[in-house]
């Protein structure tokens, strides 16, 4: 042994240090953080141990927040495109806020006074849809959305139209009690730390963790079972699992009878407007066949014993079959047998059977029972809660495909068959969900309202259509929105189609707009498909010599590639310098056992001339005298964003923040505005959580105490009713009828649109090859190409971080080693990667843990030279690349479909990023370096020089 000794150690002087609590903003997980400041500097950022989301832990991104705060890429002052310079050249002059706001509000006022739809306002990775959506509605433009259309809408819409809550935003797995957990298509994303925390719990308890993912990194690295599936075929795998469950008879009859529409009767009357709709009684209620009374009965009746299978003749003579009969007929067909699908999805038949049987075993033979008393909506009190402890979670690997909507519904079908939803050990809902299926909000679709000057919309721009009448189209079927959301081409586009805005605006399709306002969305780079094309369209001029998109406003906190294209740049604050409300009205931080929201408040001063965007929105709304922001006497209603959050009420007693409401601050979830609400949050570590009592925690969709409470506090609509999950989706059938020409109402006007609806609006989930695959020569592009977000970075937003970029400042294309060897490719080879749309050049790396027909890279590592405060020869520009160059926002033309189709899911419009098919070819000798390359962005006026050596120490 070596000798030991103690020596005196230098001590840190903490006399100037203070502790604050706020919310992280590196991704949309929104963990609670404890920030130690020293004077005006940040000394340390750690997780808040008391916070319900992260309970003290913090990921690499959050832990590197100091370098986000200290980045030289921070914007410093409003900018105007230098007079005489071209858009996209990146030449700016600094202007004062007064000038910027005057300029913008004057332009907006003019738009509003002529045709409000001329404003397109789209928000990227923000967390304030409730405010920006309200603002857009008040302004009167339907051309608003956040970015869900290119992100997660497939999961949201599939969930909200099927089970009443959804993967991704509105639910979380029960890691404490699950005995079998299946992760579908999930790599690092938000819900980041809760998944990490949860996986450890699962493994410690001996639960089995299966990861279905083409790549074995991150979460999949620690999976007990890694199932490398071919991208885009998860739906096939899921429905094959359904096949096995039905074949074995291992399904939960009780759950299906009581909580789903499995027993509902579907009219079989081909060629008529009612074909495929639910048979209903005189009161309009769906009916079932009651085995007890041997008669038809209201499906919602308390004591009904519905038949799950069968066909009967209705009183009016038409035939009707149960939903489950239709489902069984389809999924028991050999098309979905494991032996049939194995080659297509790349998963052996034995594995498919084993997965299904393991799930069934755990669900039915290892059920958990909690001694919790609860009452259901039919008034029955139960002494315990039984859980079938199979949990699932799914994200981008399912969503980012043109068959993602149906695939997600297929996953929900598995859950419904197993009776594994919102019970102990399941995927559970997070407040304000579950809600009615679907939530009853409709998008504004009245042209008289949409184009009326100085008039707010009557409804919100986004919503959940349930029938063709609710689409946002003109009488002749042309879309009324710039992104074509809620049109025949993308009917259930509940989150808009942000990825089509620039293309359509540049093509004046369906009409020209005046101003495009982008908040925190890097559309000129990694958030767009066809990056080069989009950049060209942003600078395209029409015949008159004007820009096809006349005015572009970019709001951001950092010098992104998109900032270079702005005509006006409004600089935002960083997350440590602002107020924010992470609201139940928005994308909440609730957990299954607690409704929760949170705030941010300024921790450090803003040492530059920037303003929080929400304040600017309130200011603009006030100047424009938007009604919700204006008092009856015409004066300003809200001084600023803080005032708005405290005093705005969506419904009586319902505001953006749920905690410490009421004049005395003692009401939670509902109450009068509390002028000291911000202070109350700050005193309580910047978050509020309302924990459900045990009796309300499970089966919320049928839990009387929960639903009545939820209705009283506007978390559920009026009246509270049990939510019946929809295996068979009637809204889809209505659209299908419109496509078939039988719907008694609006129908598509083109044969191609009819065919799309008739094919893809199947009321039962099914699998089809991704649309890109259907339209290219698949053997010319044999490989699937996808991306993953790395754990230390989130989309574009971390290359300006001096610490995080040391982990990743360049990227390779990863290929299966066996596949590469067969092609004569080796590590570090320069290769051309080619799709139907374009080509790029990059370096290759081989690995074992990737499906044999898949290549992938880290998302958004490549940057334009000069952006993000980086040197023009930074590796991000010289050795990083984007896969986006190979992806078109449009599908290749097809013979039978003359329309230009969005490269998207035909139901929701979700951008189909991962449908990409490529071939990889070794580059010729001498063909080295990443390609394409872009000219460097010039530095912004007033930009701070980046140090060549950093010795950060907070003092």
């Amino acid at each position, binding site marked *: 042994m*070596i000798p030991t000794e103690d020596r005196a150690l230098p001590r840190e002087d903490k006399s100037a240090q203070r502790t604050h609590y706020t919310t992280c903003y590196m991704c949309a997980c929104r963990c609670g953080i404890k920030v130690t400041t020293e004077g005006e500097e940040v000394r340390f950022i750690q997780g808040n141990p008391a916070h319900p989301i992260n309970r003290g832990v913090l990921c690499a991104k959050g832990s590197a927040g100091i370098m986000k705060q200290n980045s030289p890429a921070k914007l410093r002052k409003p900018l105007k495109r230098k007079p005489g310079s071209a858009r996209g050249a990146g030449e700016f002059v600094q202007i004062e806020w007064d000038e910027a706001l005057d300029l913008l509000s004057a332009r907006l006022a003019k738009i509003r006074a002529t045709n409000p739809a001329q404003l397109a306002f789209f928000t990227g990775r923000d967390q304030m849809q409730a405010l920006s959506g309200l603002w857009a509605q008040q302004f009167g433009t339907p051309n608003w959305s956040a970015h869900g259309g290119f992100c997660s809408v497939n999961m949201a819409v599939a969930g909200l139209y099927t089970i009443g809550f959804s993967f991704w935003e509105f639910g979380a797995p029960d890691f404490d009690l699950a005995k079998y957990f299946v992760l579908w298509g999930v790599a690092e994303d938000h819900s980041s730390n809760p998944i990490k925390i949860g996986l450890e719990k699962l493994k410690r308890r001996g639960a089995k963790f299966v990861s279905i993912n083409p790549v074995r*990194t991150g979460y999949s690295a620690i999976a007990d*079972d890694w199932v490398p599936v071919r991208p885009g075929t998860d739906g096939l795998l899921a429905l094959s699992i359904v096949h096995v469950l039905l074949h074995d008879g291992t399904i939960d009859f009780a759950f299906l009878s009581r909580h789903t529409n499995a027993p509902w009767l579907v009219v079989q009357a081909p060629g008529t407007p009612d074909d495929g709709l639910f048979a209903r009684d005189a009161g309009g209620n769906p009916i079932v066949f009651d085995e007890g009374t041997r008669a038809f009965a209201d499906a919602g009746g308390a004591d009904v014993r519905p038949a799950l299978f069968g066909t009967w003749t209705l009183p009016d003579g038409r035939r009707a079959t149960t939903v489950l009969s239709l489902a069984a007929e389809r999924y028991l067909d050999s098309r979905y047998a494991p032996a049939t699908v194995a080659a297509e999805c790349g998963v052996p038949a034995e594995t498919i059977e*084993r997965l299904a049987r393991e799930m069934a075993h755990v669900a039915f033979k290892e059920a958990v029972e909690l001694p919790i008393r609860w009452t259901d909506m039919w008034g029955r009190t139960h002494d315990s809660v039984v859980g079938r402890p199979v949990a699932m979670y799914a994200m981008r690997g399912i969503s980012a495909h043109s068959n993602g909507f149906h695939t997600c519904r297929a996953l929900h079908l598995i859950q419904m068959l197993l009776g594994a939803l919102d019970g102990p050990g399941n995927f559970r809902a997070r407040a304000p969900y579950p809600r009615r299926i679907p939530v009853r909000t409709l998008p504004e679709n009245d042209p008289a309202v949409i184009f009326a000057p100085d008039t707010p919309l009557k409804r919100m721009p986004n919503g959940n259509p349930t029938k063709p009448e609710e689409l946002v189209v003109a009488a002749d079927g042309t879309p009324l929105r710039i992104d074509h959301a809620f049109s025949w081409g993308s009917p259930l586009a509940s989150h808009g189609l942000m990825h089509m805005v620039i293309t359509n605006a540049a093509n004046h399709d369906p009409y020209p707009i005046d101003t495009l306002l982008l908040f925190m969305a890097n559309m000129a780079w990694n958030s767009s498909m066809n990056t080069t094309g989009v950049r060209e369209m942003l600078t395209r001029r029409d015949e008159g010599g004007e820009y096809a998109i006349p005015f572009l406003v970019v709001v951001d906190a950092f010098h992104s590639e998109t900032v270079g294209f702005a005509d006006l740049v409004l600089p935002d604050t960083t997350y440590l310098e602002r107020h924010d409300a992470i609201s139940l009205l928005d994308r909440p931080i609730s957990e299954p056992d607690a409704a929760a929201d949170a705030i941010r408040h300024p921790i450090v001063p803003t040492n530059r001339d920037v303003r929080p965007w929400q304040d600017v929105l309130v200011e603009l709304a006030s100047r424009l005298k938007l009604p919700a922001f204006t008092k009856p006497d015409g004066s300003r209603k809200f001084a600023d964003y803080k005032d708005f959050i405290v005093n705005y009420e969506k419904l009586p007693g319902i505001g953006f923040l749920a905690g410490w409401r009421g004049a005395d601050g003692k009401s939670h979830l509902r109450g009068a505005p509390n002028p000291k609400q911000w202070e109350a949050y700050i005193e309580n570590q910047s978050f509020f959580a309302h924990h459900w009592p045990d009796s309300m925690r499970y089966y919320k969709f049928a839990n009387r105490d929960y639903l009545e409470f939820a209705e009283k506090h506007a978390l559920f609509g009026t009246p509270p009713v049990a939510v019946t999950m929809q295996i068979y989706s009637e809204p889809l059938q209505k659209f299908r009828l419109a496509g078939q020409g039988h719907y008694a109402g609006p129908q598509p006007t083109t044969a191609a649109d009819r065919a799309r609806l008739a094919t893809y609006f199947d009321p039962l989930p099914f699998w089809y090859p991704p649309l890109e695959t259907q339209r290219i020569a698949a053997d010319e592009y044999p490989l699937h190409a996808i991306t993953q977000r790395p754990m230390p970075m989130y989309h574009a937003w971390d290359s300006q971080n001096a610490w995080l970029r*040391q982990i990743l*400042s360049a990227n390779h294309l990863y290929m299966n080693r066996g596949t590469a060897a067969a092609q004569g490719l080796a590590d570090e080879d320069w290769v051309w990667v080619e799709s139907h749309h374009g080509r790029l050049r990059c370096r290759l790396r081989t690995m074992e843990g990737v499906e044999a027909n898949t290549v992938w890279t880290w998302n958004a590592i490549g940057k334009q030279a000069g952006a993000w405060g980086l040197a023009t020869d930074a590796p991000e520009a010289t050795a990083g690349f984007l896969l986006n160059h190979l992806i078109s926002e449009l599908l290749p033309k097809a013979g039978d479909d003359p329309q230009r189709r969005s490269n998207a899911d035909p139901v929701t419009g979700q951008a189909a990023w991962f449908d990409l098919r490529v071939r990889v070819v070794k580059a010729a000798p001498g063909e080295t370096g990443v390609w394409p390359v872009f000219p460097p962005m010039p530095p912004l006026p007033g930009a701070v020089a980046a140090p060549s050596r950093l010795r950060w120490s907070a003092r």
Partner: protein
Amino acid sequence: MKPALSVVLFTVLSGAGLGVLALTGCVALFGLPWLFPERLPHATALGLALTVAGLLSSTLHLANPRNAWRAFARFRTSWLSREGVFSLLLVASAAMFAALLYAGADASLRAGFAVLTIALAWTVLVCTAMIYAGLKPIRQWRTPWTPVAYFVLGHLSGALILLGIARVDASNSVRLAHLCLVLVVLAVAVKALYWRAIRAPRDALTLEQAIGVPQGVRPAGTSGTPTAMQARLFDAGHTGRTFLTDEFGFRLARRHRGVLLAAFWLLGIVAPLVWVAGAWWQTPVVVAACAAHLGGLLAERALFFADARHTVRLYHGDART
């Protein structure tokens, strides 16, 4: 390891200087006729100069030299500390020895310092070599051949330099020439045996051993003991360089290795051999031969560094050390 010039130069010059000092000590102690007595102090001074030059060169390797004076503190455990202490003593002793020689001092005093100088010179040679041989993470250094080779090569350099001085003077140095030949043969043998020893992969560590997960995994759905599986690096955790990759990640191209090896044999071994055999004693030739030999040793030392594969390379993806 990246061959740092300062360290390479240090060991070559220092080794040569120490060899010179050890041999001049012997000349003085045993009254050997190899050098004229009036030449002895110059030779000693040259040895001292080479040693000091080498030691000074080594301090260029320090990133924070103002703490260099502390380097004697851990004598009990650190070969570098010991080398420092003994170097200081050696320099003092050799300086005294040289001064005594210059002054023509008392024979027993000279003999005393000769013994001291020889002993210290040998000690410093061993300590220096043990700095490298004592490092367990570097398999190519951790062998008795390291100190043996350094000892032999140092004496070879010293003997050649002394021979050069001697023959320029045309003193009676036939035995010294024989000693040089013997040392050449020894050097060849020692280096050849060294290279053979480190080529053997018996004690090489593997990436699998380094990360400690050699037991592999069991494919899903199967049972039984999983067989040991091969590991490879997927991602080092940084896409740029780090201190570790700079310091330990040096990769010598095959042809560069060939060049260095050739330089060692040709310049370090063959050239002196030819020179001694050819017996060309003109000053320029002497200087050239000694310079060539030292140049060859610089190549050998550089190879010594370049061939070193620290275990940290396993963590960065090397399959074995």
